[in-house]
């Protein structure tokens, strides 16, 4: 009963994670997207901490702390600053209209649950039922990357995908070995800073962060 109570909280947070993924799909403003990304990170970090507490897997505490520092504090702060400096926070129209995107999203969720079913049956963790949700949020993030033409939303989509993968790791096998998680976090951090430099280069050259200008390299 004691354990089940915590599990319910984890399931609630998993549901929140999925909801936030959908909210991201429908969000038009970049600052709104960054806020949602920070909330998604918070849900991920909290659920990881709860799993750590209820199962006694201590290394998950580090993973939760790492997620919190990077994905709730550092990266959103950095993105807010970027958006302000580059002055790009306007409403953006996605390439496919939002209701259609949502419908595709629902189909993806069903697909993800089917895909995750055989694996979660094999898993021995208490959190296995959330594996489907993790897969769904990976696919939804992927969808967001496809339907946005601006550089920053694409990157946020990429990071949301990373969130989904971490959640999958937590629910299937209580996370990855610590050294790997640290390495992945380092890569993500470096990646975001490299992109920061990169955004300024794109901006300097194209005078915009719209990737529609970047469709010259094609096979004729």
């Amino acid at each position, binding site marked *: 009963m004691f354990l089940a109570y915590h599990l319910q909280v984890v399931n609630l947070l998993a549901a929140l994670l999925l909801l936030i993924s959908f909210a991201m799909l429908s969000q038009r403003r970049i600052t709104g997207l960054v806020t949602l990304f920070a909330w998604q990170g918070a849900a991920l970090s909290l659920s990881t901490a709860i799993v750590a507490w209820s199962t006694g897997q201590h290394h998950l505490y580090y993973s939760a702390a790492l997620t919190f520092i990077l994905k709730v504090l550092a990266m959103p702060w950095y993105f807010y600053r970027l958006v302000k400096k580059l002055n790009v926070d306007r409403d953006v129209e996605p390439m496919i209209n939002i209701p259609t995107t949502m419908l595709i999203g629902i189909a993806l969720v069903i697909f993800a649950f089917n895909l995750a079913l055989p694996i979660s049956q094999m898993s021995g963790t208490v959190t296995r039922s959330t594996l489907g949700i993790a897969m769904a949020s990976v696919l939804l993030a992927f969808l967001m990357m496809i339907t946005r033409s601006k550089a920053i939303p694409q990157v946020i989509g990429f990071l949301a*995908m990373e969130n989904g993968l971490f959640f999958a*790791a937590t629910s299937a096998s209580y996370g*990855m070995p610590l050294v790997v998680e640290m*390495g992945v976090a380092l*890569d993500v951090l470096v990646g975001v800073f490299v992109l920061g430099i*990169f955004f300024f280069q794109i901006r300097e050259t*194209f005078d915009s962060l719209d990737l529609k200008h970047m469709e010259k390299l094609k*096979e004729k």
Partner: protein
Amino acid sequence: MEIYWLLGIPLAGGVFLALWGSRRNAPEINALFSLLTLLAAAALTMRIIAEGPMTVGGEGWFFIDPFNVFLVALTAFVAFTTALFSRPYMRIEKEHGRLNDQRLRLYHSSYQIFIAAMLLALTTNNMGILWVSMEAATLATVLLVSLYRTPASLEAAWKYFILCGVGIAQALFGTILLYFAAEKVLGSGGTALLWTHLNGVKAQLEPTVLQLAFVFLLVGYGTKVGLAPLHNWLPDAHAEGPTPVSAVLSGLLLNVALYAVMRSKVLVDGALGNEGDNSMAGNLMMGFGLLSVVVAAFLIKRQTDVKRMFAYSSIEHMGLVTFAFGMGGPVASFAGLLHMTMHSLTKSAIFFAVGHATQSAGTQLMEGIRGLIKTNPTIGWGLMLGTVAILGVPPFGVFASEFLIITTAMHEHPWATPFLLTALGVAFASIFGKVQPMVFGETTLPRLPYQPALTPVFIHLGLVLMLGLFIPPYLAAWYRQAAHMLGG
């Protein structure tokens, strides 16, 4: 011990050049660090040849066997010759006003870190760290591809980052699944992703999970190998980046990515218990490999940019190697390893020659490059010989490895041979037809006002020629051991 030198030197080089890289002698320092890395790699190779496979450090953080030590030696060697080539080349680019000191500092520092990341990917025993270092290698090169800050180069770098990022995220999921299967057998914790541990218990790993994991790993790392239909980033990144970067991307990074696929394949084959003919992993690799060969060969025909054309040729050759490894067995694996070596050496030599050719013509378009043999004979000969070598004309080594691959295919998978032969024929006709006027045509081009850095080109081609005529017995034995590691 050597392993720490091997990884430490390029890393220290990266930091050193980031801090003091705007000095005038930065290119020499870059070459010096690369030379030290090569010496460390040589020492490591000697030790492995003498003592056989070994694990190093803690619970076995590094694992070195004949398979990866051969790639380590190749990587360190090509990294060194590329550093030699880039010394005069980048200086000329700077004189042409395409680069400044700031960007050269970024270039030298990233170059060293890129080499360090690839060497870590090759030597680590942990499948998770393998993923981390592959991603680090991508990140180190993103800003190198966009070094010229032209619109096209920025677009290429963005495509490279996003496509490889998404690809490598698939590989991360594959790694998670692998850990999920491993943790049941090995228990949780840091050792469950160590390849040597996994290899020991591969027969007990859950086959369905491993199957799924391999699909994700193949798609993920396969994006970086440039396998069709995931190859879109590759021609752009190769064509728009500076030539030394094209040379190391094509000659080294693709190999390292394929190495990651091969390490996964050994595990899956073990878990499914069906090595050889009906290996699911092998069949998938054969399919992707064959598709890449055919797609690339037909796209080569349509290229107008010389670096793009040779980038497609890289896709074709990596496809061929993937196909060979997919077939498995001692001969095919041997041929695949040999072809990997030949392709690295030849393709980087071609890029060196092409780099100087484009510098003298001031364009990368093939119609603008004409009659090199008259104005700059060494560049002309370098390009011609390199092209002849990569097209598989005997007596160059590429012929030997392609011949082995095709005869094995005829023997074991006859259905594939018409595709392979057609594709190789089309590639031959298109590349030769386009390079011939570049070298021998009528020209109005001026002579290069400086001495081109072509020693590395002829060293590489000399090695390829030598290996085509005669493979020293100890090298052959070494390749055979490596092929054996691949389950051949």
